[in-house]
């Protein structure tokens, strides 16, 4: 079955369809990771986005439920290069889940050409379409909708009874990240609409990863909460959480040309270099931290953006990359170790 990827600006690609037979709009991005397809596809940060896999030969290995980073495939659509997708267990499972989740896919298109287009023009809006009709309306998803869709609907508590208490603001969290945090204490998981008041009850306020634009006004309440909590309770965050924390304290998130999506990005603390898992379309330029009390202590090797921000006095620490891996290297820059120290032993 023929299916098309249409890009705003008039470029189109034709391939064969798999997954659900529906049309889907989204921002077209690409990931360069050669492993961890299922983790990536189910990562809520990809909500609102059509995911292009640069690595061409996919779905060789079985789909495992425990690789899922959320309850469903979160990307709006999936684009693969493979010319032949044979009947293998991996493919069959993902094809049927995509159908169940209403997520369309295309395979057999020139993904390298597509990636170079995105690289040269920047992230572009597109539609996966069965008709190839270029009159389609390119739309963007609202950050609030994406966060609502991908985060918990109900507030709940994990690891009840543990000594330390954590407030976990779920903006569209990956399962593996939540798991790492719950290991540290009783975790109260709340969402963007929850009433956020008594930070004093907690030993840590944690802001998760998630989809969308960190400067979106819908995140205003969370930022205000962070500003009030700062200095009173340790605060930490990952990815969108990092951007929200920095944003709350006065830094300005910047939209990147086409984002970072992959498991091979290098980050340095000035001495050591770490290979990290990235998945973000916005970042915090290091100079933007001036006056916030936060200091950049790890940087992206190539664009110099802040990868880890720390305010020692006020016990704040956040990272742009994904220390939980899944996919990618796990905690290369010792974030979780730092978190543990911050909560249990000593000041940073």
């Amino acid at each position, binding site marked *: 079955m023929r299916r098309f990827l249409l890009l705003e600006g008039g470029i189109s690609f034709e391939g064969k369809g798999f997954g659900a037979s529906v049309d889907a709009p989204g921002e077209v991005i*690409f990931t*360069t*990771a*050669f*492993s*961890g397809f299922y*983790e990536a596809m189910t990562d809520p940060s990809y909500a609102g986005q059509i995911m292009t896999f*640069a*690595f*061409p*030969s996919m779905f*060789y*290995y079985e789909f*495992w439920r425990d*690789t899922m980073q959320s309850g469903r495939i979160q990307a709006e659509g999936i684009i693969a*290069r*493979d*010319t*032949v997708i*044979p*009947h*293998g*267990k*991996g493919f069959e499972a993902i094809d049927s889940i995509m159908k169940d989740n209403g997520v369309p896919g295309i395979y057999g298109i*020139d*993904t*390298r*050409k597509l*990636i*170079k287009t995105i*690289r040269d023009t920047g992230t572009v809006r597109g539609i996966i379409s069965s008709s190839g009709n270029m009159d389609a309306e390119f739309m963007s998803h609202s950050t609030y909708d994406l966060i609502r869709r991908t985060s918990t609907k109900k507030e709940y508590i994990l690891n009840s009874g543990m000594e330390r208490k954590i407030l976990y603001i779920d903006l569209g969290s990956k399962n593996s990240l939540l798991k790492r945090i719950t290991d540290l204490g009783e975790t109260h998981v709340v969402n963007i609409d929850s009433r956020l008041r008594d930070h004093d009850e907690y030993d840590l306020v944690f802001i998760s990863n998630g989809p969308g634009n960190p400067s979106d006004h819908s995140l205003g309440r969370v930022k205000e909460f962070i500003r009030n909590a700062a200095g009173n309770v340790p605060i930490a965050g990952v990815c969108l959480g990092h951007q929200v924390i920095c944003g709350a304290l006065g830094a300005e998130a910047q939209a990147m040309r086409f984002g970072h999506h*992959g*498991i*091979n*990005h*290098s980050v*340095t603390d000035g*001495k*050591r*270099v770490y*290979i990290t898992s990235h998945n973000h379309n916005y970042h915090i330029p290091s100079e933007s931290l001036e006056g916030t009390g936060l200091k950049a202590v790890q940087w992206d*090797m*190539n664009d110099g953006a802040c990868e880890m921000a720390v305010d020692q006095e006020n016990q704040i620490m956040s990272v742009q990359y994904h220390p939980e*891996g*899944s*996919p*990618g*290297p*796990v905690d290369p820059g010792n974030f979780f170790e730092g978190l543990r120290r911050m909560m249990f032993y000593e000041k940073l």
Partner: protein
Amino acid sequence: MKNSEHDLRVLVIGAGPIVIGQAAEFDYSGTQACKVLREMGAYTVLINSNPATIQTDSDTADRVYIRTVNWKNAEKIIVEEKINAIIGCMAGQTGLNTLLELDKRGVLDKYSVRVLGTQPEYVRMAEDRILFHELMRLNGIRVPESMNIEAGSWKQKLDGIDFYPFMARTSFTLGGKSGAIIRNRKEAEELFSHVFSEGRQKEMEIEHALGGLVEMEYEVIRDSTGNSIMICNMENIDPMGVHTGESIVVTPSLTIHDSLHQRMRREALKIADLLRIEGACNVQFAIDHEKDEIYTVEVNPRTSRSSALASKATGYPIAKIATELITGKILTEIINPITGNTSASFEPSQDYVVVKIPLWPEKQFPEEHDIGVSMKSTGETMGIGRTFEESFFKAIVSTELDLSKYFMRKLPAEYIEQHIRSPSRVRLGCIINAIKSGYSCENISEMSGWDERILMRVYEPLRRLFSMNREEIMQNLRELKITGIPDRIISWSSGISEKELIEIRRKIGIFPVYRIIDSSSGEYRSGTRYLYSTYGEEDESGGPLEGSIIIMGSGPNRIAQGLEFDYSSVKAVRYLRKIGKKPLMINSNPETVSTDFDESAQLFFDPLVPEYVSGLIDMKKPEGIIVQFSGQTGQNMAGILSEIHGREIILGTSYESIMNIEDRNLFSKYLQENEVLQPEWTVAGYSDSILEKVRELGLPVIIRSSFIIGGSLMKILRREDEVSEYVSNLKESGSGVELHISRFMERAREFDMDFLCSSGEIQVVGMMEHLERAGVHSGDAISIGGEGIPEEYVKEEAIRIAGLLSSGFSLKGFANLQFMEKDGRIYVIELNSRASRTMPIMSKHSGIQWIEYGTELILGGKIRNITDESHGFYAKIPVFPFDRYHNSNASLGPEMKSTGEAMVSGRTLEELRKNMIAEMGLADHLIVFSKETAAMIHDGKIQAMSRDEAERLFDHPQDKTVFCSNGKTDSAIRKKCVARDIPFITDDRVFSFLYPEKMEIFKKMDLPLQN
């Protein structure tokens, strides 16, 4: 350290002759290392005895010592050149062993030489399996169960072994040479009694053999401050039990989840840390999916075959970056040479897949098909495609093997099942045949141990292809090409010729396009000139390139077509760039310097078969293509390329001339017509009565077919029953070629002559005389050259004949003539209209840039009349892989068997002799066998003994050298020498050259010497 870069005087250890387990990959890494050192201003000195390398080119280092690689010679150079730093990690096991020896003997301390790279104590820890296992276990890293067995107490330990099957190997191996799989107590007893009774070894470690598990490799680089990154991982398609050098490998891994991949990656980096690796290392793992366990199997604390493969697979130049790291830089300071503006500390990502397939010398060593823990392949080839299936199929045709029989008809079930079940060099062919024969994917996977999920990707496209008839293939050609099936495979399957397929594709507009390897999947803009072909996508090669010239490489390293050709192609590439041309390199060998993307204007990593070469011509519209550096591959392809693209496309000697030279019957006819002497000859079709023709000619004869690589299918037949056997074998193989039969001239002297030609004029490059008599392949003979070799009258006649042939065949460029002398007359054996195997050696002896001059002629230049003013003598000493092929009878003949060669020089013949003896490892206790009797000669004393007594001396092989005066027939003695690593000589002429003073002794022994 950084302040003293300019005071750095570095000795780089080279890898020596090409042997199995140590091939062209160390020319690549060693040359990169030298390049980096010179760029940073270090005084760079090299020791390597391999003349075929680019590394030993005078451009590579400040001083190049073409000498035997051992600690003694290294020490001399350290003193002479006031060396203060040494690099031993760019030359395989030879490099490490030499480094450790220098360290052990205190040479490094004595002269304050700093080791650049992983320090000797850690190298030892990685190499000594006992220490290594200890270190791993201490740090919670799982290694296979193991036990140390000592010569004195092996009997007691025998009962304690509870992990069969186990692998027995000695430490410090080369390509797993001494590995064996032991299945039960009885085999263990046999092995121990064998190994320890010979007294060669005092102890050995045995370890649980993890046969059948999935094998993975991780390539890591690490700097001295502890930063480390993984360059890529590789999945061995053949399960554990097959040496990684013998296995088909895909990179990156396809069948494991990210969590498992990350576990191994983390462990690999941890191991690199524990071993304080500086530079590159390779870590091998075995995965037990059932137990969810990973075992660390081995670490190579150096650049390796795998790191060369990883460099070419990812575009990340491991040896280059590693050299920067071991000379004191840290990862964060280095710019990624691929993008030019990002950091080198990143992990490459691929938007394509790479498959490596090894190559075995099947024709030269037909006896043993089995492969296993010991390496037997001579080289490898790599396929790059956009998808796994495309790269797999491209790798298959890159082998340049004729696999048609596996595609054309169903072979006996018993045969294919046997070779699929037990690892074999024909396993791949048999798997293809099983697909053709209708075996299920699951069944083939179960028999072979190949992952079904991987096999499926090849299985389905092949099933579809096999089901198509000619018409359906034509209708679906575009789809087949996009699926990644090369013309050659379509041709094997359907019988449609490759030429017809190319013509049809050109007519309907299906051309290959080229994609860039940028190590970042397109994420960063890159200036690389490294490309591969695919179908149905956008082209990134930039289209037609004015001033471009294609140079065809020589493909995978194999016997008779090795590194020598790569030297010549790289020299030609550099020359073309120097004169402002744009050389485009096409080659399929990941080990080589020619596939270093820094060398050519653009590098196209593609199979050397007509489809891809023709496609490249169509895309780049070059001024022409040079096939003279491509060995026999280019000679064989000149015809089809001329037919498709016009005869002007071949630069240099035209394809008509190549045909007339390569077709032995036409060539012999030409010689006859022009009154050039040659052995008496005749032609026979295989239906003719060959025996009758042989009788007419008179035995012995040399029998061969036309168009050959390195004398394959060539045989010397001495008796009538041998002729009958040859004929019946020939009928069985069903080969329909014409045969060329010539009288074999006994006891003639053979010579090699290289020369350049243009417009009927010639320029002599050099001549060498074989020490063995005619009948031993020129690649296998020990040859010497220099002042006064050969005698003047021989020279003159050879030059006269070369001139005649040059104008007769309108030769343009390189040529090589093989001829012999008997009773004062010169007979022509063979002419090659291409750069020969001996070009590098002649270039290095004379110091003249012969490749440049020859290339100039190919482009239309005139002969320059260069005088060779070099003095002294030189010898070429071949090395043989008999130790890998125990069933071979270790004898020499018209089929080439050597994998590589060493070069030694001497100002006088006496000095040459001395150096030859050292290079060959000949020792001072000579054991001489004649037909009836034997003797040992030492210190000028002869001790006569029986043959049995002499053979018992083999039990203590140290310091022994064997000479079988009737060598050709004494195969049992030769095999024993091979098994015990005793150097041996079988040719009396070689012996008398090396030991002229011993001739007296032979007279006394009454040995049948005729010299």
